[in-house]
């Protein structure tokens, strides 16, 4: 036990004292926010094709397509009556394309064809199709004698509010979007954490082996103790980073709040409630990106003075669902499955690090280990978010290799205690078994030099 601690201490201190670690702890949240901001910016701002396109149109319904409202960025011209010359113009690039609709019956428009010299994007195709459909619908309404203004007034609008009925007969506001967001953010963190810190464990084992330090160490420490000390030490480094981010985020939010408070408006009740919730749960720290944005939105809108009404609405929309979330459960599930998942996977990573002689040998072993993790993440993104209580989500939240990610996605939607206990029990059992198996590979791997190890060697070492 004492030796596990000595190893733990070395692993922890050398990493935490490292300048790169300190810099990255402060920089990573900024990079993450920057990354998302850039992605959103690119997706919204620069994704569209903004060239103005001149397109011939021809149809059998006069003025169906040659209307006053062409699609954005399109200039429509009547096509020459001779289809050969229309096609020739398209080919020579005189016009961007030729849109032809031959249907007379506008209930089913199935002859629309768009000729271009370059393959149009899916977005372009869809938007043209939608535009034609709208035009056809309008024409149909017009035949019934309805004017455009009348058509608009006939359109109904609808919004659906969701409320949860709890066991005590209470009815609470719920927000699927918020829960999905929180669940996904937490699952994403576990996914990244396992990869980043699992690789750290692997590199640490490899460093000791390739630098030939390990033989000195195993003469006074059992390989199992060495492996556990390493895994726990690196886990503590990760947790330190989390705590640093939480403190950083909370500090930042309070700093900004203080700035606004000084500008004159006192703290409103809504803000007090909001701050209280966040302080109680530490939600901000868990996702330095979106969590902070949400809570900051809430607080700033509470200032009331120069905030937009949009922000105020957003705060109102999220305030009640936020206070209704099963925080304790989410946090407990996150921490337990996070630790369990990390320990399970990092023992694999440690075994790989001990087996190989150089970085380039790692790839062949990494694939089967990372595959279940990636698979879990895909399940989390698709099945678990769409149907958190469905059979597939339940199944994969039980399988220990995927449960750390899938269960965390399900957690905000409320998971029965029995399911949580079973899944966590399975995870712990598998973790204990895998650590034991990995330590068998580890204790032989670290002292085996020479040829590149194969799966067969690993199997032999296991037995």
């Amino acid at each position: 036990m004492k030796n596990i601690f000595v190893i733990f201490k070395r692993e922890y201190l050398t990493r935490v004292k490292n300048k790169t670690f300190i810099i990255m702890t402060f920089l990573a949240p900024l990079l993450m926010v920057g990354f998302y901001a850039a992605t959103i910016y690119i997706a919204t701002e620069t994704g569209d094709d903004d060239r103005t396109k001149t397109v011939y149109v021809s149809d059998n319904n006069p003025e169906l397509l040659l209307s006053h409202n062409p699609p954005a960025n399109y200039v429509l011209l009547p096509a020459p009556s001779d289809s050969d010359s229309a096609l020739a113009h398209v080919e020579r690039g005189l016009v961007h394309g030729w849109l032809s609709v031959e249907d007379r019956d506008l209930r089913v428009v199935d002859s629309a064809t768009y000729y271009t010299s370059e393959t149009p994007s899916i977005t372009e195709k869809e938007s043209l199709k939608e535009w034609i459909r709208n035009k056809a619908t309008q024409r149909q309404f017009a035949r019934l004698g309805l004017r455009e203004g009348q058509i608009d007034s006939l359109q109904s609008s609808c919004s659906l509010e969701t409320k949860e009925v709890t066991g005590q007969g209470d009815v609470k506001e719920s927000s699927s979007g918020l829960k999905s967001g929180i669940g996904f953010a937490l699952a994403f963190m576990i996914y990244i954490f396992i990869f980043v810190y699992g690789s750290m464990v692997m590199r640490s084992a490899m460093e000791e082996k390739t630098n030939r330090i390990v033989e000195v160490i195993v003469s006074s420490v059992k390989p199992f103790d060495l492996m556990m000390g390493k895994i726990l030490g690196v886990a503590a480094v990760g947790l330190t980073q989390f705590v640093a981010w939480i403190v950083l985020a909370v500090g930042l939010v309070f700093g900004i709040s203080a700035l606004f408070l000084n500008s004159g408006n006192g703290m409103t009740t809504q803000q007090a409630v909001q701050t209280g919730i966040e302080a109680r749960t530490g939600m901000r720290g868990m996702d330095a990106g979106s969590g902070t944005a949400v809570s900051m939105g809430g607080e700033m809108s509470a200032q009331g003075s120069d905030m937009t009404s949009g922000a105020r609405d957003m705060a109102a929309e999220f305030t009640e669902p936020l206070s209704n979330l099963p925080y304790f459960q989410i946090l407990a599930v996150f921490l337990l499955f996070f630790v369990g998942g990390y320990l399970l996977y990092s023992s694999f990573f440690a075994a790989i690090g001990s087996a190989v002689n150089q970085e380039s040998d790692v790839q062949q072993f990494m694939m089967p280990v990372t595959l279940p993790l990636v698979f879990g993440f895909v399940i989390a993104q698709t099945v678990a978010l769409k149907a958190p209580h469905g059979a597939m989500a339940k199944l994969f939240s039980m399988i220990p290799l995927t449960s750390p990610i899938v269960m965390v996605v399900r957690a905000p939607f409320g998971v029965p205690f029995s399911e949580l206990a079973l899944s966590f029990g399975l995870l712990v059992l598998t973790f204990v078994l895998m650590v034991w198996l990995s330590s068998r590979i580890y204790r032989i791997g670290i002292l085996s030099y020479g040829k590149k190890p194969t799966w067969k060697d690993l199997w032999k070492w296991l037995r």
Partner: protein
Amino acid sequence: MSKVIEAINVCKTFGEQRVSKNIDLAVSQGSIYGLLGPNGAGKTTLIRMLSTITQPDSGEILFKGEPLKESHAQLMGYMPEERGLYKKMTVADQLLFFAELRGLSIKDAKASVKHWLQRLDMMEWARKKVEEISKGMAQKVQFVSCVLHNPQLLILDEPFSGFDPVNADLIKDLIIELKNQGTSIIFSTHRMDNVESLCDHLAIIHQGEKVLDGGVSDIRRKYAKGIYEVGYYQSVEWDAGMSAAGESTLISEQQHSDGKVVYRFQTSESFTPEQLLKLAMGKGNLVHFSEHVPSIHEIFVDTVSKTAEPIAGATIAAEPS
């Protein structure tokens, strides 16, 4: 003298290959035990068993009379042939880490690290990272890391490999000093240069078997075959004298760089060294007369070449216990 460590009939097999065959050895308190053998002879495997890293398949290892167990590792210092340090750690932190691993309390560890750094004039390097110090310096750190906890048994596997001559001498002096303080030392090597000057006792391992064992002087005496050397500052004619003397054979003639000519004779029971000396004195101005005792190097080469091919393959592997 009491035994610090004893191996009794120890065997170890990796797959099909028997790397230790019925090995017996015993290391006395305060002595230096040389473990010789060519590459791949099974020295490292034996050492790993002695230092608790692996366990023998059969046979027994006793530490101070008790069956060897993991806790005994704290009383040993082990410097493997393949050795390294954490490059990113400072010298002092690294030594503290090893001292704590060997069971010292933080306070004792700090005191020991300070003592050794002062002893080797390295205090000013204590806060430097290993990647910032010279290779020779790193070698000293390596040695210190094995002796910080005052081990009762120090196992050194090829301790001078990679050491420059200055550091090698320094380490040699330290080894002798430790021995004089009562530390027992196992010293494995395939190079004979230092064995004669350092070891009290030696064993030769070849193809997993112990082929020779005994006190260094006893072994050399045992291998002395009645060969004597006589030397002059000029060449000497022997034929007539030899026939008169009868049963002595001139086996070699060597011209030394200092101008001395040395003749080597194989004596026999009927022709004693005294008779050879008398004969030699009559030949001219005799400046050298001695018995030729074979060096450990010659004994080693002789012993090893008598047995079959060396074990093939240089892969060092550990096997599940």
